């Protein structure tokens, strides 16, 4: 390749380009919005056609948590192993607001979301930790929060019996609230991926120092992602309380909630918008099949799936597909 510089077009000559990129962006968006629409129609019909509410609720919950976790794990590279802290807090704030303060549940859930943002701000100093330190501290903070709630007076948090708000809330409403939160999360994800913030985050994930040198404000971008991520987990916690009507410190802070969010997101592909949804569909469906056939093997298989994913497809279904067929990048967000 002799003197390549002569063949290079000038900047002015290139200004008319970009139409192919725009076209690909339109295709990607169309596929994505079609997927959201399909999910909405499908899930909205479940109560009407007497489908299995619990499974579809589990799917919507999982997809929202995986998408929320993806904001911080997929877009910035942090692995918040105590992600459940925000979820648990959302449940408790919602429960307390409904039961003790008499606030309608549809206002209580957003209150829980805001509480999640406040907690995320309080935990923000941990963002300067890296890798495994961040994961361990995040997990520890979740445990500390769980024990702190257990320490609170029984009149407020219900003590070891937990809280029961089932008489005050409607299960079907809770189901649809979950759908609303899921759609919010999915739209936020696609907006974020195409926004400048989203690009900064991906650059940070790839190489924080290089991003910094290219003018990206690393600390601020990470903080935004962290807050958005926490907000959705807390909303989900609140809606979960709305749907099931009962929770205690063990179910609200179960480490499996975090684990499933991570696994669903990883199975589909961290860092892609569509990945967490795909991962959740596949794994909730597989889980359901397996659970029906071999109930006692449930957690063994969850563990096996995790191990196999990490060893053989660490980039998940979408990530692996894109790596093998790079053209698919044009079709998936």
């Amino acid at each position, binding site marked *: 390749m002799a003197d390549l510089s002569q063949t290079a077009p000038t900047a002015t000559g290139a200004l008319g380009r970009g139409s192919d990129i725009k076209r690909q962006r339109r295709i990607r968006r169309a596929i994505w919005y079609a997927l959201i629409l399909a999910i909405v129609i499908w899930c909205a019909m479940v109560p009407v056609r007497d489908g299995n509410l619990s499974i579809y609720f589990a799917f919507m919950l999982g997809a929202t948590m995986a998408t929320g976790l993806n904001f911080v794990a997929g877009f910035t590279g942090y692995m918040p192993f105590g992600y459940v802290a925000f979820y648990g807090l959302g449940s408790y704030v919602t429960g307390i607001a409904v039961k003790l303060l008499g606030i309608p549940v549809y206002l209580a859930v957003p209150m829980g979301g805001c509480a999640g943002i406040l907690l995320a701000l309080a935990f923000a100093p941990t963002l300067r930790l890296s890798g495994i330190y961040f994961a361990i501290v995040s997990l520890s903070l979740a445990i500390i929060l769980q024990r702190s709630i257990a*320490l609170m007076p029984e009149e407020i948090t219900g003590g070891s019996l937990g809280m029961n708000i089932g008489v005050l809330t409607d299960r079907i409403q809770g189901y649809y609230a979950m759908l609303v939160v899921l759609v919010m999360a999915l739209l936020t994800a696609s907006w974020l991926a195409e926004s400048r913030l989203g690009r900064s985050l991906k650059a940070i994930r790839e190489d924080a120092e290089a991003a910094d040198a290219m003018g990206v404000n690393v600390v601020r971008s990470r903080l935004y992602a962290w807050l958005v991520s926490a907000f959705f987990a807390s909303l989900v916690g609140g809606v979960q309380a709305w749907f099931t009507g009962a929770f205690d410190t063990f179910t609200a802070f179960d480490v499996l909630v975090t684990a499933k969010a991570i696994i669903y997101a990883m199975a589909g592909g961290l860092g892609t918008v569509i990945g967490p949804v795909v991962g959740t569909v596949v794994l909730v469906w597989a889980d359901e099949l397996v659970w029906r056939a071999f109930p*006692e093997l*449930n957690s063994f298989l969850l563990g096996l799936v*995790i191990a196999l994913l990490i060893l053989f497809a660490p980039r998940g279904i979408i990530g692996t597909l894109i790596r093998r067929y790079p053209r698919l990048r044009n079709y998936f967000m």
Partner: protein
Amino acid sequence: MSSILLYNALIGGLVFGAIYALIGASLNVMMGVLRVVNFAHGEFVLIGSFLAYSVFSLTGLNPLAALPVVAIAMFFGGVAAYYLLIPRLRYSDDAETSSFLLMFGVSLMLVSSITWIYGADIRPVNFSFDPVNIALLTVEDAYGKGRDGKVLVPTARLVALVINLAIIAAMTWFIYRTLPGKALRGAIMNRDAIQVVGIDIDRLSANAFGLAAALAGVTGVILTLVIPSVDPNGGAPLTLFAFIVIVLGGLGHPIGALLAGMLFGMVEQFSNVLLPQSAAQMVGFVMLVAVVMFKPEGLFGRKVMR
């Protein structure tokens, strides 16, 4: 508050501290040599406990009889697990976090397998020493004037403590005085440099993984003397304690973990006596967060390793 409770906490602190020290040290060998964050470490310990339970319930022998079997089985199991799981991790984007998640998956599989084999119930290990308790000292007027109290310690716990300390001493000797031990320390300090001086890092890593697994299993056997029951779900808290210990002692430093384990045992036992239950369960994690945020090299600094 009776001073007897405080004496009990002190002895409990030693007994549990030695256990935590050993769990932390073995976890730190994996962490230091292999950069593997073993989230299944509590379950590795649990395997030892359940094997001891099997030996005891089948033969009626002292669970300690299982020690050599467990050590050898776990060593080879560990080496096999290493070759099966760890080398592939090098291809992932973030090997440390991947190892963390991988071993979390392994821990789910292990708990589920143990439950499948032994059932979900907590099983007692009713082996009793003769005498059951040993009175270490007498406290005058412990329960009011003229009513003296005795500080009683279960013989099993004392035996566990002695064996535990012996293993710790042996391990320290191994790491500082033998050639393989020195290679291990070298690998912890600088994994790249040690390959240059002609050490097969893969074999060393596999052996280190096996050694750590064996130590974890042995700790599990000893644990059945301290807490005479086995619980398929008992692994997760042990893993968390192990993480507290290695963070306090400095990530990757087996000797730091020994000191931190004793410290954590003491803190835990005294908080159990002095604080409400939920608060006591929190103390360790608060320490962990504080150390990571303010003194990430661990409480004892880097000198401990040298």
